[in-house]
C-alpha cells in the first residue's frame, strides 16, 4: 500500500537538499496506538504522505476456534474480541445462533439484554472518550470517565459476577435472573450520569484547543464512509443516518424512543459530538427500559444440545463501534461449520489511510483515537 502512495506536490526544498522521506514506525508498542496496532508512516517533515496499518499482532484465530467448539462453548470466546464491549459481542452471537435455531428469547430476556447492552455502549464510549482525550493531551477526563465506567462494571458484576468479559447472555435468553436492585442501580447511575456528561462537555466541547485539535482533522465524507464500509459513529458523523437498532431492530429496541445523532463534517470533532450524544441516548433507552421490565421466563426452550438445522444466517447488531455481524453456517452438527465475524473496528480501520493523508504526526494519534478501534476485534 505504502509503495503506491503519491506524495502530491514535490517538496522543492527537500529535493534540493536530497532529503529522503522519513519512515516512522508507530507501534506495536506505542502509548497511543490503542493496543498493538502498528502503523508505518511516511513523513515529509512532520506531514504524513502515506501510511500502512500492519495488523495481526493480536490474532488468536477466533473464527477457526469456533469450528471446533459447540455453539455454547464458543459464546465466551466472542467476549474477547471487543473486550471493552463484551456484552454487545455476546448479544450479537447469541441472537445469530437463535436465528439459526429459529428460536426467540422471551420478552423479559430481551429487555434485560437491551439494558445491559446499552450500559455497555455507555461504558465503551466512556473508555473511548477518556483515552481519546488523553491522546490529545487532556489528562483529566480519563479518570472521570473511568469513575462512571466503574459504576457500570459494578452493575455487570452484580448481575453475572464478571466485569469485563462477562458472557452475560446465553443462546435462547439469559442464564441469570436480574438481581433485585438492578432497576434501582441502573436508575441511580442514569440519574448521576446526566450531570457527569455535562462535566465532560464542560472540559472539552467548547475548549479552543480541543476544537482546534479535532475540527477538520481526519475528514471522511459521506460517500467515502459508505464506500469504505464504515459503520457506527464513524459513519453517522459523516452525516449518514444509519443505525441497525432502528433499521433492523433486534433485542427490544423497537419498543423504545431514541434519536440517531448525526454529524455534518465527518471530522474528528463531529465524531466526538456524535458519541457523546449517543451516550445520552443510551441513557434514555436504559431509563425507558427499566420502567417496564416484563415478567415471565428468561430462557426459551432450546434444549441442552444445540443442533441447528443445516443452513446459514447473517445477523448484525449495532455494537458501540459499528455494525457487528455474525455469519454462521450450520451443517446440522453440534459445532458450527463456519463462523465469520464482521468486526466494526477492522472495517473502520480501512478509512485510516484516507483520513490521515496530509495531516501531522500529532493528528495521527487523534485519528487512531477517533476511529475507536480495539485491536482484539481487528485481529480476532
Amino acid at each position, binding site marked *: 500500500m505504502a509503495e503506491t502512495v503519491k506524495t502530491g506536490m514535490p517538496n522543492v526544498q527537500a529535493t534540493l537538499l536530497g532529503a529522503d522521506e522519513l519512515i*516512522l514506525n508507530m507501534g506495536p508498542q506505542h*502509548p497511543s496506538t490503542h493496543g498493538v496496532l502498528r502503523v508505518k508512516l511516511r513523513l515529509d517533515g*512532520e506531514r504524513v504522505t502515506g501510511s500502512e496499518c500492519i495488523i495481526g499482532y493480536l490474532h488468536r484465530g477466533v473464527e477457526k476456534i469456533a469450528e471446533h467448539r459447540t455453539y455454547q462453548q464458543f459464546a465466551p470466546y466472542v467476549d474477547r474480541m471487543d473486550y471493552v464491549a463484551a456484552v454487545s459481542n455476546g448479544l450479537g452471537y447469541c441472537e445469530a445462533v437463535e436465528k439459526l435455531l429459529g428460536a426467540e428469547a422471551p420478552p423479559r430476556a430481551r429487555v434485560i439484554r437491551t439494558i445491559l447492552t446499552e450500559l455497555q455502549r455507555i461504558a465503551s464510549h466512556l473508555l473511548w472518550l477518556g483515552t481519546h482525550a488523553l491522546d490529545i493531551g487532556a489528562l483529566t477526563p480519563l*479518570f472521570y470517565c473511568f469513575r462512571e465506567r466503574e459504576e457500570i462494571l459494578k452493575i455487570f458484576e452484580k448481575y453475572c459476577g464478571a466485569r469485563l468479559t462477562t458472557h452475560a447472555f446465553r443462546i435462547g435468553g439469559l442464564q441469570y435472573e436480574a438481581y433485585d436492585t438492578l432497576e434501582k442501580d441502573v436508575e441511580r447511575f442514569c440519574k448521576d450520569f446526566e450531570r457527569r456528561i455535562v462535566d465532560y462537555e464542560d472540559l472539552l466541547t467548547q*475548549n479552543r484547543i480541543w476544537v*482546534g485539535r479535532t475540527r477538520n482533522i481526519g475528514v471522511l465524507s459521506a*460517500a467515502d464512509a459508505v464506500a469504505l464500509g464504515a459503520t457506527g459513529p464513524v459513519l453517522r458523523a459523516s452525516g449518514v443516518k444509519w443505525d441497525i437498532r432502528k433499521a433492523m431492530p433486534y433485542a427490544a429496541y423497537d419498543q423504545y424512543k431514541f434519536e440517531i445523532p448525526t454529524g455534518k463534517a465527518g471530522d474528528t470533532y463531529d465524531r466526538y459530538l456524535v458519541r457523546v450524544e449517543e451516550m445520552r441516548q443510551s441513557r434514555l433507552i436504559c431509563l425507558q427500559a427499566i420502567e417496564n421490565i416484563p415478567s415471565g421466563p428468561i430462557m426459551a426452550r432450546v434444549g441442552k444440545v444445540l443442533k441447528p438445522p443445516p443452513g446459514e444466517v447473517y445477523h448484525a447488531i449495532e455494537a458501540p463501534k459499528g455494525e457487528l455481524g455474525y455469519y454462521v453456517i450450520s451443517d446440522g452438527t453440534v459445532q458450527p461449520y463456519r463462523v465469520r465475524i464482521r468486526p466494526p473496528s477492522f472495517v473502520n480501520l480501512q478509512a485510516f489511510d484516507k483520513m490521515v493523508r496530509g495531516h501531522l504526526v500529532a493528528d495521527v494519534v487523534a485519528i487512531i483515537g477517533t476511529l475507536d478501534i480495539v485491536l482484539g476485534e481487528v485481529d480476532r
Partner: protein
Amino acid sequence: MIHATLEFLRTYAGPLIAAVVIVAVLPLIAGYVVLLERKVMAHFQVRLGPMRVGPHGLLQPIADALKLLIKEDIIPENADVWIFWIAPVTSVTAAMLAMGALAFGPAFQVAKDINIGLLFVVGVSSLGIFGIVLGGWASNSHYSLLGALRSAAQLVSYETAAGMALVSGLLFAGTLQITDIVKAQASEHLWFVCFAPVSFFIYLVASIAETNRAPFDMPEAESELVAGYMTEFSGFRWALYFLAEYANMVVVASVATTLFLGGWLRPFSGLGGPAGTALDLFPVLILLALAGYCGYRAPKQPVRVQQLVMFGVAGLCALFALVLAAPLFVGALAGAKAGIHGAFWFFLKVSAYIYLFMWLRFTLPRYRFDQLMRLGWHFLIPLSIVNVMLLGLAIVLSSQYGVNRALAIGVMNLITLLFALYLVSVEKGREDRKAAQTADQVTDSYAG
C-alpha cells in the same frame, strides 16, 4: 599559589557555599515539586496519588531518586556516545547556573548582584536547549529526533516573545540587576504586573512553552512521540533531564516573580500599622496551622514510622514558624526580618506560579505543533512588540511631556488589549478561510 587560593576562598567563600547548597538542594526541591505535581494531579483526578512511601507519599521523591540512581545505564548501540553522555549534563548545568544568579530574598543570592542579572538568567537558561537538541540527535531514534527538532523550533519562537515581555517589565525597573528590580517595585509600592499586565500574560504563556509544559509539551508529547527527546534515555541520565525540566520551571517562576510579582516583597509592602503587622503575621500563622494539622493527622497514620515522619514534618513546620516569628517579636533579631520573610513570600509566589502551571496541565488538551507555532508567531510576538513600544511611549509621555503617568500607562495597556483582539479576529478569519478551502475539496472514493 596557596596564598592566592586562600585569598580566593576568603573572597568567594559565601557564594561557593551557596552554590554547593544549590547543587545539593535543587534536586530535592525538584523532587518535591514532582511529588507535589503528582499529588495535585491525583486530586484533580479524584484519586490519591503516591501514598505508600512515607505518610501521604512524603518520602516518594527519595525512593524515586534511589531507584533511578541504581538503574542499569543503557546507551543505545547506534548512539553517539559522547554527545549522549554530555547532553543531559548540559541541560542540568544550564538550569543550575541560571539558579545561581537568582535572588530568593534580599539575603539569599549566590552570585551577588551581577549587574546584568536578568539577562544572565535568561541567556544561560536558554542554553539548556542544547542539551535537548543534542540528546535527541545523539540517541539516533526518529522519535527523539522529532522531539528535539520540535523543541528547538519551539524555544526559538517563544524566547522572542518572552524576551519582549521581559523588556517591557524592565522599562519600569530601569535596571537588569535583580535586587534593584525588586527595589524599584518597592519604591513604586506596586508590582510591575499592575503596570504591564499584558506583558505578564505573554511571559506566562511563553514560559510554559519554554519549559515544555502542557499544553505546549510538544517535544515530549507522550501520546505522539513516546517521550520525545528523552525516549532513549533511562536511569540517571533520564533523571538529569527531569531535574533540568523542573529546575527550569523554578527558574521561570522565579523570573516572573522577580520582575512582575514583586519578588520577595510582601503584598502591600508599603502598608504599615496594624494591617501591616497582620500581614507580617500571616506566614507565621499559616505555618503554625500546617504544623497543627500535621500533628493532628500524625497519630492517624497506620504505621509507626509514618507517624514519626509526620510528627517530624509537624516539627519542621513549627520550627519554620518560630524562625519567621522571631524577628517580629525579638527586638535584637529585627534586622533579619526582611531576609527571612522575603524568602517566605518569594517561595509562596513561586509556588503559586508553579501551581498555575500544573492546573493548566491537568485541564487543557495539547496544542498541535503548527498551532503552537502559529500562536507564537501570529499572536504573541506581534503583541509583545506592540506592547513594548506602547509602554515605552507611555513612559516617554509621562517623563518628558508631563502626561499623568497612571493615565498614560492605562491607556497604552488598553490599546494593547485592542490590538490583541484585532490579532485574534485576523487569526479567526484565516482559520475560516482554511476551513472553507478544505470543505471545497471533493474526493471520489470510487476512483481507483
